[in-house]
């Protein structure tokens, strides 16, 4: 098999017509088996897809679980099936994973498998950390951040298009909560105005449909990013023709990975969105889901892509404000906003570190993989520890027990957000002292 990227290759720059060397990553001169690299990247990409799944279950299912419109297990099962189906429905997004953010492809930099590997490590570790703290951060931002960080180390700052970074990441991140929150604020007011108090329980039935719609819209978007990563890697390694779409087996494994992740539930994030921001009533849950679905569909079809995660959190803040501005827990909302702001740089820094280590060669890759697995296991072990302690505060979200009663009790209790806060404070303190 021919080497996909020898240490230096010259090509004609389409813009200037002059010869220019390929920007190659330092690893090209060392002898890391390309097949091993591709296998590693695919494994990591699938694990990222899995984290993406449980990170984003909350986007569609936090509010129906919080209002008791759907039982927790039923909600995550519906979300998992719709994510599985959604992944097969559309592969348009998979063509360019970073949406032009990294100047990839023919007229750009060469992002080799080892850089994608480092980028995925950064994205996965950040997804795990935010999950531990119950923060609904954007998985796409984590992925973009990871790839950016790795590309900067491997290629340099010219790998990044700052204009695209601004228009596709920073600005949508600021505008998503404004659009979704504004819309849900207005429709919550409208819904309260139109319905007498006795008629509002009917919104629960509607929630089943609206949350499913959000779930399906999510499914057609997110698995595609992983398909894009794997396809890009296969192309970079020379296993697949440049410019071709994802192979069927890639679509299938990505769909299964995100569906499994979705079924895991990501209960910490569900708790934050469903009960941490405001005590969601069915009328608010319905409004939030309609606002989320409408904002996502409008943005994907009118060319101003917004993050599902940010839209759904913004919607919940909006429905809280629409009922009573004192019903919004601004500390939780502030923590979520902080999470949005630091997701991209944090994932980028971790991926950059991973890329620096990967530059050593095969040893670096092995160190990266071991450290990555170690961090994931450590976070999982830590999550088990705090899971035991918060079960006593929020039995309704206790998925390991056999009873799956609706979360009405949890929503009604004022204790929960406080308990959750103290838990998170305790966690961060413990993390600092480590």
């Amino acid at each position, binding site marked *: 098999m021919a080497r996909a990227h020898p240490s230096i290759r010259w090509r004609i720059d389409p813009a200037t017509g002059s010869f220019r060397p390929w920007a190659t990553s330092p690893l090209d001169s060392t002898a890391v088996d390309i097949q091993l690299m591709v296998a590693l990247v695919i494994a990591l990409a699938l694990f990222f897809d899995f984290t993406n799944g449980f990170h984003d279950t909350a986007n569609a299912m936090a509010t129906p679980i919080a209002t008791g419109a759907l039982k927790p297990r039923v909600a995550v099962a519906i979300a998992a099936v719709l994510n599985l189906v959604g992944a097969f429905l559309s592969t348009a997004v998979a063509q360019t994973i970073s949406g032009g953010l990294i100047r990839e492809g023919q007229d750009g930099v060469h992002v080799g498998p080892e850089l994608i590997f480092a980028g995925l490590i950064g994205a996965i570790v950040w997804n795990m950390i935010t999950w531990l703290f119950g923060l609904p951060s954007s998985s796409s931002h984590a992925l973009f951040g990871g790839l950016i960080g790795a590309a900067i180390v491997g290629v340099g700052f010219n790998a990044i298009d700052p204009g695209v970074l601004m228009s596709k990441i920073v600005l949508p991140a600021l505008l998503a909560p404004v659009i979704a929150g504004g819309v849900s604020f207005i429709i919550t007011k409208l819904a309260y105005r139109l319905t007498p108090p006795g*008629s509002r329980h009917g919104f629960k039935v509607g929630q089943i449909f609206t949350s499913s719609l959000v779930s399906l819209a999510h499914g057609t978007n997110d698995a595609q990013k992983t398909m894009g990563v794997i396809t890009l890697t296969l192309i970079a390694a020379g296993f697949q023709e440049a410019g071709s779409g994802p192979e069927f087996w890639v679509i299938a494994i990505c769909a299964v990975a995100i569906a499994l992740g979705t079924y895991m539930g990501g209960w910490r994030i569900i708790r934050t969105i469903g009960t941490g921001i405001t005590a969601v009533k069915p009328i608010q849950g319905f*409004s939030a889901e309609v*606002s989320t679905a409408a904002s996502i569909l409008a943005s994907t079809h009118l060319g101003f892509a917004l993050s599902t995660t940010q839209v759904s959190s913004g919607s919940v803040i909006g429905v809280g404000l629409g009922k009573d501005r004192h019903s919004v827990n601004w500390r939780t909302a502030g923590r979520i906003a902080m999470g949005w702001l630091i997701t991209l740089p944090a994932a980028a820094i971790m991926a950059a570190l991973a890329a620096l280590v990967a530059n050593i060669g095969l040893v670096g890759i092995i160190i990266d993989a071991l450290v990555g697995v170690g961090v994931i296991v450590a976070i999982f072990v830590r999550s088990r520890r705090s899971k035991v302690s918060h079960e006593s505060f929020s039995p309704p979200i206790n998925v390991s027990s056999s009873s799956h009663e609706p979360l009405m009790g949890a929503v009604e209790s004022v204790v929960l957000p406080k308990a959750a806060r103290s838990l998170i404070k305790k966690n961060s303190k413990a993390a600092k002292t480590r």
Partner: protein
Amino acid sequence: MIDWLAFITVAAVALLSSVIVVGFYALGLRLLGPGENTTTPARRTGAVACFAVCGLAVLYGIYLIVPALH
């Protein structure tokens, strides 16, 4: 380049479609009343029509999501 027009379009379309869905659903619930026996056949028909509008909106959403349909 920031496409402010696209942003405003997205916000307007999201708002309009949300107002339609939530407005008709709420109207349908209002017509149904709090219990089974508190409504007349005319109100019931009106409520069904309202829910049908919401159903069509959800179907249109599915149509938008699935590229094979358009």
